[in-house]
Protein backbone atom coordinates (compact mmCIF):
# COMPACT_ATOMS: atom_id res chain seq x y z
CA UNK A 1 0.00 0.00 0.00
CA UNK A 2 1.43 3.38 -0.96
CA UNK A 3 1.51 6.38 1.33
CA UNK A 4 -1.16 8.01 -0.83
CA UNK A 5 -3.40 4.99 -0.41
CA UNK A 6 -2.86 5.09 3.33
CA UNK A 7 -3.76 8.77 3.44
CA UNK A 8 -6.93 8.25 1.46
CA UNK A 9 -8.16 5.46 3.67
CA UNK A 10 -7.60 7.25 7.00
CA UNK A 11 -5.63 4.18 8.01
CA UNK A 12 -3.98 3.75 11.39
CA UNK A 13 -0.92 1.53 11.77
CA UNK A 14 1.03 0.88 14.97
CA UNK A 15 4.60 -0.40 14.71
CA UNK A 16 5.69 -2.07 17.93
CA UNK A 17 7.03 -5.00 19.85
CA UNK A 18 4.76 -6.95 22.21
CA UNK A 19 7.27 -6.77 25.07
CA UNK A 20 7.59 -2.98 25.15
CA UNK A 21 5.56 -1.12 27.79
CA UNK A 22 5.97 2.04 25.69
CA UNK A 23 4.18 0.33 22.81
CA UNK A 24 1.60 -1.02 25.28
CA UNK A 25 0.81 2.54 26.36
CA UNK A 26 -0.19 3.43 22.82
CA UNK A 27 -2.07 0.16 22.26
CA UNK A 28 -4.14 0.78 25.37
CA UNK A 29 -4.98 4.30 24.20
CA UNK A 30 -6.14 3.02 20.80
CA UNK A 31 -8.19 0.28 22.44
CA UNK A 32 -9.99 2.37 25.07
CA UNK A 33 -10.88 4.90 22.40
CA UNK A 34 -12.18 2.14 20.12
CA UNK A 35 -9.88 3.07 17.22
CA UNK A 36 -9.36 0.43 14.55
CA UNK A 37 -5.74 -0.08 13.67
CA UNK A 38 -3.33 -2.47 12.08
CA UNK A 39 -0.50 -3.75 14.26
CA UNK A 40 2.93 -4.54 12.85
CA UNK A 41 5.32 -6.48 15.08
CA UNK A 42 8.91 -5.36 14.60
CA UNK A 43 12.04 -7.40 15.21
CA UNK A 44 14.30 -4.83 16.86
CA UNK A 45 17.42 -6.72 15.79
CA UNK A 46 16.23 -6.49 12.20
CA UNK A 47 14.21 -3.30 11.85
CA UNK A 48 11.97 -2.99 8.82
CA UNK A 49 12.78 -0.36 6.18
CA UNK A 50 9.36 1.19 6.82
CA UNK A 51 10.14 1.68 10.51
CA UNK A 52 13.42 3.36 9.65
CA UNK A 53 11.62 5.62 7.17
CA UNK A 54 8.97 6.59 9.69
CA UNK A 55 11.35 7.11 12.63
CA UNK A 56 14.72 8.04 11.16
CA UNK A 57 15.80 10.03 14.21
CA UNK A 58 15.37 7.47 16.99
CA UNK A 59 14.70 4.27 14.98
CA UNK A 60 12.47 3.01 17.81
CA UNK A 61 9.01 1.71 18.51
CA UNK A 62 6.24 2.68 19.03
CA UNK A 63 5.48 4.54 15.81
CA UNK A 64 1.93 5.47 14.91
CA UNK A 65 1.21 6.10 11.25
CA UNK A 66 -2.03 7.94 10.50
CA UNK A 67 -2.97 9.15 7.04
CA UNK A 68 0.53 8.19 5.94
CA UNK A 69 2.18 10.49 8.51
CA UNK A 70 4.29 9.20 11.38
CA UNK A 71 4.02 10.23 15.02
CA UNK A 72 6.74 9.11 17.40
CA UNK A 73 7.34 9.01 21.21
CA UNK A 74 4.63 7.27 23.23
CA UNK A 75 3.33 10.26 25.21
CA UNK A 76 3.33 12.47 22.11
CA UNK A 77 1.40 9.74 20.26
CA UNK A 78 -1.20 9.42 23.02
CA UNK A 79 -1.84 13.17 23.12
CA UNK A 80 -2.19 13.09 19.32
CA UNK A 81 -4.71 10.23 19.60
CA UNK A 82 -6.66 12.13 22.25
CA UNK A 83 -6.77 15.29 20.14
CA UNK A 84 -7.68 13.54 16.89
CA UNK A 85 -10.35 11.02 17.97
CA UNK A 86 -13.18 12.24 20.13
CA UNK A 87 -14.59 8.74 20.80
CA UNK A 88 -14.21 7.05 24.17
CA UNK A 89 -12.80 8.71 27.30
CA UNK A 90 -10.92 12.00 27.11
CA UNK A 91 -7.41 10.94 28.09
CA UNK A 92 -6.41 14.42 29.21
CA UNK A 93 -9.07 16.28 31.21
CA UNK A 94 -10.11 19.86 30.44
CA UNK A 95 -8.64 21.37 33.59
CA UNK A 96 -5.11 22.67 32.84
CA UNK A 97 -3.84 21.95 36.34
CA UNK A 98 -5.00 18.31 36.26
CA UNK A 99 -3.47 18.01 32.79
CA UNK A 100 -0.13 19.25 34.12
CA UNK A 101 -0.19 16.72 36.95
CA UNK A 102 -1.08 13.85 34.63
CA UNK A 103 1.69 14.84 32.22
CA UNK A 104 4.16 15.13 35.10
CA UNK A 105 3.46 11.67 36.53
CA UNK A 106 3.21 10.04 33.09
CA UNK A 107 6.65 11.44 32.32
CA UNK A 108 7.92 10.29 35.75
CA UNK A 109 6.90 6.71 34.94
CA UNK A 110 9.93 6.49 32.67
CA UNK A 111 12.20 6.73 35.72
CA UNK A 112 10.09 4.18 37.59
CA UNK A 113 10.27 1.87 34.57
CA UNK A 114 14.05 2.18 34.26
CA UNK A 115 14.43 1.26 37.93
CA UNK A 116 12.10 -1.74 37.44
CA UNK A 117 14.18 -2.96 34.50
CA UNK A 118 17.28 -2.79 36.70
CA UNK A 119 15.59 -5.04 39.27
CA UNK A 120 14.96 -7.62 36.55
CA UNK A 121 18.51 -7.41 35.18
CA UNK A 122 20.44 -7.70 38.45
CA UNK A 123 21.07 -9.87 41.50
CA UNK A 124 22.52 -9.46 44.98
CA UNK A 125 23.55 -6.00 46.13
CA UNK A 126 22.84 -4.33 42.80
CA UNK A 127 19.33 -5.74 42.85
CA UNK A 128 18.80 -4.67 46.47
CA UNK A 129 19.72 -1.15 45.48
CA UNK A 130 17.38 -1.23 42.47
CA UNK A 131 14.51 -2.60 44.56
CA UNK A 132 14.96 0.23 47.05
CA UNK A 133 14.88 2.75 44.21
CA UNK A 134 11.67 1.30 42.77
CA UNK A 135 10.09 1.32 46.20
CA UNK A 136 10.94 5.00 46.76
CA UNK A 137 9.74 6.00 43.30
CA UNK A 138 6.47 4.06 43.51
CA UNK A 139 5.85 5.70 46.88
CA UNK A 140 6.15 9.10 45.20
CA UNK A 141 3.83 7.95 42.41
CA UNK A 142 1.32 6.83 45.04
CA UNK A 143 1.44 10.33 46.57
CA UNK A 144 0.90 11.80 43.11
CA UNK A 145 -2.18 9.64 42.59
CA UNK A 146 -3.48 10.74 45.97
CA UNK A 147 -3.24 14.33 44.74
CA UNK A 148 -5.25 13.46 41.63
CA UNK A 149 -7.76 11.23 43.42
CA UNK A 150 -8.20 12.65 46.92
CA UNK A 151 -11.36 10.55 47.38
CA UNK A 152 -9.83 7.31 46.12
CA UNK A 153 -10.16 5.66 42.70
CA UNK A 154 -13.79 5.80 41.50
CA UNK A 155 -15.81 2.69 40.72
CA UNK A 156 -14.97 0.77 37.55
CA UNK A 157 -18.13 1.93 35.83
CA UNK A 158 -17.33 5.57 36.42
CA UNK A 159 -13.65 5.02 35.93
CA UNK A 160 -13.90 3.57 32.46
CA UNK A 161 -15.44 6.86 31.38
CA UNK A 162 -12.69 8.84 33.06
CA UNK A 163 -9.59 6.85 32.14
CA UNK A 164 -6.65 9.16 31.68
CA UNK A 165 -3.29 9.00 29.95
CA UNK A 166 -1.63 8.40 33.33
CA UNK A 167 -3.78 5.34 34.06
CA UNK A 168 -2.83 3.78 30.74
CA UNK A 169 0.86 4.45 31.36
CA UNK A 170 0.67 2.89 34.84
CA UNK A 171 -1.08 -0.17 33.47
CA UNK A 172 1.40 -0.52 30.62
CA UNK A 173 4.29 -0.81 33.08
CA UNK A 174 2.63 -2.53 36.03
CA UNK A 175 -0.02 -4.59 34.26
CA UNK A 176 2.38 -7.52 34.17
CA UNK A 177 2.91 -7.35 37.94
CA UNK A 178 1.88 -10.99 38.49
CA UNK A 179 4.49 -12.18 36.01
CA UNK A 180 7.07 -9.89 37.63
CA UNK A 181 6.25 -11.36 41.05
CA UNK A 182 6.52 -14.91 39.75
CA UNK A 183 9.91 -14.37 38.09
CA UNK A 184 11.46 -12.18 40.78
CA UNK A 185 9.88 -13.77 43.83
CA UNK A 186 9.02 -10.35 45.23
CA UNK A 187 6.32 -7.69 44.97
CA UNK A 188 7.11 -4.31 43.45
CA UNK A 189 3.60 -3.06 44.18
CA UNK A 190 1.08 -4.25 46.77
CA UNK A 191 -2.31 -3.20 48.09
CA UNK A 192 -0.90 -2.24 51.48
CA UNK A 193 1.95 0.06 50.52
CA UNK A 194 0.61 1.30 47.19
CA UNK A 195 -3.18 0.94 47.36
CA UNK A 196 -3.97 3.58 44.74
CA UNK A 197 -1.57 2.14 42.16
CA UNK A 198 -3.12 -1.30 42.73
CA UNK A 199 -6.75 -0.07 42.58
CA UNK A 200 -5.91 1.83 39.41
CA UNK A 201 -4.65 -1.36 37.75
CA UNK A 202 -7.47 -3.59 39.00
CA UNK A 203 -10.09 -1.08 37.89
CA UNK A 204 -8.57 -0.72 34.42
CA UNK A 205 -8.19 -4.46 33.82
CA UNK A 206 -11.97 -4.81 34.15
CA UNK A 207 -12.57 -2.68 31.08
CA UNK A 208 -13.23 -5.19 28.23
CA UNK A 209 -11.07 -3.40 25.66
CA UNK A 210 -8.19 -3.40 28.14
CA UNK A 211 -8.69 -6.98 29.32
CA UNK A 212 -8.44 -8.36 25.80
CA UNK A 213 -5.18 -6.48 25.15
CA UNK A 214 -3.31 -7.98 28.11
CA UNK A 215 -0.72 -10.61 27.28
CA UNK A 216 -1.23 -14.13 28.71
CA UNK A 217 0.62 -14.65 31.99
CA UNK A 218 2.75 -17.62 30.81
CA UNK A 219 3.96 -15.68 27.79
CA UNK A 220 5.10 -12.72 29.92
CA UNK A 221 6.69 -15.02 32.54
CA UNK A 222 8.63 -16.85 29.83
CA UNK A 223 9.82 -13.58 28.31
CA UNK A 224 10.86 -12.05 31.67
CA UNK A 225 12.78 -15.21 32.59
CA UNK A 226 14.59 -15.14 29.26
CA UNK A 227 15.28 -11.40 29.55
CA UNK A 228 16.66 -11.81 33.08
CA UNK A 229 18.84 -14.81 32.23
CA UNK A 230 20.28 -13.01 29.24
CA UNK A 231 21.05 -9.89 31.24
CA UNK A 232 22.73 -11.86 34.03
CA UNK A 233 24.77 -13.83 31.49
CA UNK A 234 26.09 -10.68 29.78
CA UNK A 235 26.84 -9.12 33.15
CA UNK A 236 29.19 -11.93 34.09
CA UNK A 237 30.64 -12.49 30.60
Amino acid sequence: MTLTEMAEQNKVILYGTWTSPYVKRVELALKVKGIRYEYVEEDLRNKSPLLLTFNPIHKKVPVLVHNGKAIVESLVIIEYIDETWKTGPQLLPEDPYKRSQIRFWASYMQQVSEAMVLVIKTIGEAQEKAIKEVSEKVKLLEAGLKGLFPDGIPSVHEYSKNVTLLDLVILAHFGGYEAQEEVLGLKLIDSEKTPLVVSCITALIEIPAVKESLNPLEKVVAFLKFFRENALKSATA
Partner: protein
Amino acid sequence: MADVVILLDAYASVFGMRVRVALAEKGIKYEYREEDLRNKSQLLLKMNPVHKKIPVLIHNGKPVCESLIIVHYIDEVWKDKAPLLPSDPYQRAQARFWADFIDKKLYDAQKKIWTAKGEEQETAKKEFIEALKVLEGELGGKPYFMGERFGFLDIALITFYSWFHTYETLGNFSIEAECPKLISWAKRCMQKESVSKSLPDPKKVYEYILEMKKKLGVE
Protein backbone atom coordinates in the same frame (compact mmCIF):
# COMPACT_ATOMS: atom_id res chain seq x y z
CA MET B 1 -9.54 37.62 42.13
CA ALA B 2 -6.17 38.41 40.63
CA ASP B 3 -3.82 35.58 39.72
CA VAL B 4 -0.74 35.17 41.89
CA VAL B 5 2.12 33.77 39.82
CA ILE B 6 5.54 33.00 41.23
CA LEU B 7 8.44 31.51 39.27
CA LEU B 8 11.23 29.68 41.11
CA ASP B 9 14.17 29.83 38.73
CA ALA B 10 17.94 30.28 38.27
CA TYR B 11 19.04 32.91 35.79
CA ALA B 12 21.39 30.72 33.73
CA SER B 13 18.96 27.79 33.40
CA VAL B 14 17.88 27.14 29.81
CA PHE B 15 14.78 25.45 31.25
CA GLY B 16 13.85 28.37 33.48
CA MET B 17 14.29 30.75 30.54
CA ARG B 18 11.65 28.85 28.57
CA VAL B 19 9.08 29.68 31.23
CA ARG B 20 10.17 33.33 31.34
CA VAL B 21 9.67 33.62 27.58
CA ALA B 22 6.25 31.95 27.72
CA LEU B 23 5.09 34.24 30.54
CA ALA B 24 6.37 37.28 28.63
CA GLU B 25 4.65 36.19 25.41
CA LYS B 26 1.37 36.05 27.30
CA GLY B 27 2.00 39.30 29.17
CA ILE B 28 1.57 37.64 32.56
CA LYS B 29 2.68 39.50 35.67
CA TYR B 30 4.68 37.32 38.00
CA GLU B 31 7.20 37.35 40.83
CA TYR B 32 10.62 35.99 39.88
CA ARG B 33 12.56 34.26 42.63
CA GLU B 34 16.18 33.36 42.06
CA GLU B 35 17.19 30.05 43.66
CA ASP B 36 20.69 29.22 44.83
CA LEU B 37 20.93 25.64 43.57
CA ARG B 38 23.54 24.73 46.18
CA ASN B 39 21.24 26.00 48.91
CA LYS B 40 17.67 25.33 47.79
CA SER B 41 14.84 27.15 49.54
CA GLN B 42 12.27 25.38 51.67
CA LEU B 43 9.65 26.57 49.23
CA LEU B 44 11.38 24.88 46.28
CA LEU B 45 11.76 21.61 48.20
CA LYS B 46 8.10 21.75 49.18
CA MET B 47 6.83 22.65 45.72
CA ASN B 48 8.97 20.12 43.84
CA PRO B 49 9.62 17.27 46.28
CA VAL B 50 10.09 14.71 43.50
CA HIS B 51 12.91 16.36 41.51
CA LYS B 52 13.86 19.33 43.72
CA LYS B 53 14.64 21.30 40.57
CA ILE B 54 13.79 24.60 38.96
CA PRO B 55 11.83 25.91 37.18
CA VAL B 56 8.69 25.64 39.27
CA LEU B 57 5.68 27.79 38.45
CA ILE B 58 3.45 28.42 41.44
CA HIS B 59 0.01 29.59 40.32
CA ASN B 60 -2.33 30.62 43.12
CA GLY B 61 -0.34 28.41 45.48
CA LYS B 62 -0.28 25.29 43.26
CA PRO B 63 3.02 24.12 41.76
CA VAL B 64 3.66 23.06 38.16
CA CYS B 65 7.04 21.43 37.40
CA GLU B 66 9.09 20.56 34.32
CA SER B 67 9.67 23.38 31.83
CA LEU B 68 7.73 21.99 28.85
CA ILE B 69 4.82 20.93 31.06
CA ILE B 70 4.80 24.47 32.49
CA VAL B 71 4.79 26.02 29.00
CA HIS B 72 1.81 23.81 28.05
CA TYR B 73 0.08 24.87 31.26
CA ILE B 74 0.66 28.56 30.59
CA ASP B 75 -0.65 28.14 27.04
CA GLU B 76 -3.78 26.38 28.28
CA VAL B 77 -4.63 28.71 31.18
CA TRP B 78 -3.97 31.97 29.36
CA LYS B 79 -5.41 30.73 26.10
CA ASP B 80 -6.85 33.98 24.77
CA LYS B 81 -3.52 35.55 23.97
CA ALA B 82 -0.54 34.56 21.79
CA PRO B 83 -1.18 30.81 21.33
CA LEU B 84 2.12 28.97 21.70
CA LEU B 85 1.14 25.61 20.25
CA PRO B 86 -0.40 25.17 16.80
CA SER B 87 -4.02 24.07 16.65
CA ASP B 88 -3.55 21.10 14.28
CA PRO B 89 -2.93 17.82 16.20
CA TYR B 90 -0.23 16.62 13.80
CA GLN B 91 1.62 19.96 14.00
CA ARG B 92 1.36 19.81 17.78
CA ALA B 93 2.79 16.29 17.77
CA GLN B 94 5.69 17.51 15.64
CA ALA B 95 6.40 20.42 17.99
CA ARG B 96 6.33 18.09 21.00
CA PHE B 97 8.54 15.52 19.28
CA TRP B 98 11.22 18.07 18.46
CA ALA B 99 11.10 19.61 21.94
CA ASP B 100 11.68 16.12 23.33
CA PHE B 101 14.58 15.69 20.87
CA ILE B 102 16.13 18.91 22.17
CA ASP B 103 15.82 17.72 25.77
CA LYS B 104 17.34 14.34 24.97
CA LYS B 105 19.99 14.81 22.30
CA LEU B 106 20.96 18.46 22.53
CA TYR B 107 21.02 18.78 26.30
CA ASP B 108 23.33 15.80 26.97
CA ALA B 109 25.78 16.82 24.24
CA GLN B 110 26.04 20.46 25.33
CA LYS B 111 26.79 19.55 28.92
CA LYS B 112 29.96 17.68 28.00
CA ILE B 113 31.20 20.65 25.96
CA TRP B 114 31.72 22.64 29.13
CA THR B 115 32.48 19.84 31.59
CA ALA B 116 34.76 17.56 29.57
CA LYS B 117 38.14 17.85 27.89
CA GLY B 118 40.07 16.26 25.04
CA GLU B 119 38.38 13.48 23.12
CA GLU B 120 35.25 13.45 25.26
CA GLN B 121 34.76 17.12 24.54
CA GLU B 122 35.39 16.61 20.81
CA THR B 123 32.76 13.88 20.66
CA ALA B 124 30.31 16.12 22.51
CA LYS B 125 30.96 18.98 20.07
CA LYS B 126 30.29 16.67 17.13
CA GLU B 127 27.05 15.37 18.63
CA PHE B 128 25.95 18.89 19.50
CA ILE B 129 26.54 20.21 15.99
CA GLU B 130 24.86 17.15 14.48
CA ALA B 131 21.78 17.75 16.61
CA LEU B 132 21.74 21.45 15.69
CA LYS B 133 22.03 20.56 12.01
CA VAL B 134 19.05 18.22 12.27
CA LEU B 135 17.07 21.03 13.89
CA GLU B 136 18.28 23.45 11.22
CA GLY B 137 16.96 21.01 8.61
CA GLU B 138 13.61 20.93 10.38
CA LEU B 139 13.48 24.74 10.33
CA GLY B 140 14.09 24.74 6.59
CA GLY B 141 13.25 28.09 4.99
CA LYS B 142 10.60 29.03 7.55
CA PRO B 143 10.93 32.13 9.75
CA TYR B 144 10.02 30.09 12.84
CA PHE B 145 9.86 26.37 13.47
CA MET B 146 6.11 26.04 13.06
CA GLY B 147 5.82 28.58 10.26
CA GLU B 148 5.02 32.26 10.41
CA ARG B 149 4.45 32.50 14.14
CA PHE B 150 6.89 32.25 17.03
CA GLY B 151 5.83 29.42 19.32
CA PHE B 152 6.48 26.39 21.51
CA LEU B 153 9.37 24.85 19.64
CA ASP B 154 11.16 28.19 19.16
CA ILE B 155 10.83 28.71 22.92
CA ALA B 156 12.22 25.22 23.62
CA LEU B 157 15.36 25.88 21.60
CA ILE B 158 16.11 29.63 21.72
CA THR B 159 17.11 29.52 25.39
CA PHE B 160 20.23 27.51 24.48
CA TYR B 161 21.33 30.48 22.36
CA SER B 162 22.36 32.32 25.52
CA TRP B 163 24.88 29.54 26.08
CA PHE B 164 26.37 29.51 22.57
CA HIS B 165 29.13 31.97 23.51
CA THR B 166 30.11 29.63 26.38
CA TYR B 167 30.17 26.55 24.15
CA GLU B 168 32.14 28.33 21.42
CA THR B 169 34.72 29.73 23.82
CA LEU B 170 35.25 26.55 25.84
CA GLY B 171 34.95 24.27 22.81
CA ASN B 172 36.93 26.52 20.49
CA PHE B 173 34.55 26.37 17.54
CA SER B 174 32.04 28.55 15.71
CA ILE B 175 28.41 27.52 15.72
CA GLU B 176 27.56 30.11 13.07
CA ALA B 177 30.07 28.55 10.69
CA GLU B 178 28.30 25.20 11.05
CA CYS B 179 24.67 26.33 11.28
CA PRO B 180 24.26 29.78 9.74
CA LYS B 181 20.51 29.41 9.15
CA LEU B 182 19.95 28.54 12.77
CA ILE B 183 21.87 31.61 13.89
CA SER B 184 19.67 33.78 11.62
CA TRP B 185 16.62 32.22 13.24
CA ALA B 186 18.07 32.87 16.70
CA LYS B 187 18.73 36.54 15.90
CA ARG B 188 15.19 36.83 14.58
CA CYS B 189 13.84 35.44 17.87
CA MET B 190 16.08 37.79 19.88
CA GLN B 191 14.37 40.74 18.21
CA LYS B 192 11.27 39.85 20.19
CA GLU B 193 11.18 41.57 23.55
CA SER B 194 9.70 38.48 25.22
CA VAL B 195 12.91 36.66 24.29
CA SER B 196 15.58 39.35 24.66
CA LYS B 197 14.33 40.36 28.10
CA SER B 198 14.11 36.75 29.30
CA LEU B 199 17.55 35.53 28.28
CA PRO B 200 20.65 36.44 30.30
CA ASP B 201 23.69 38.21 28.86
CA PRO B 202 25.81 35.45 27.24
CA LYS B 203 28.95 36.94 28.83
CA LYS B 204 27.39 36.58 32.27
CA VAL B 205 26.53 32.96 31.50
CA TYR B 206 30.16 32.34 30.53
CA GLU B 207 31.45 33.87 33.77
CA TYR B 208 28.95 31.79 35.73
CA ILE B 209 30.12 28.61 34.01
CA LEU B 210 33.78 29.41 34.70
CA GLU B 211 32.89 29.77 38.37
CA MET B 212 30.91 26.50 38.30
CA LYS B 213 33.85 24.70 36.74
CA LYS B 214 36.16 25.97 39.49
CA LYS B 215 33.76 24.82 42.16
CA LEU B 216 33.27 21.44 40.51
CA GLY B 217 37.02 21.11 40.05
CA VAL B 218 36.74 20.61 36.28
CA GLU B 219 39.18 23.12 34.90
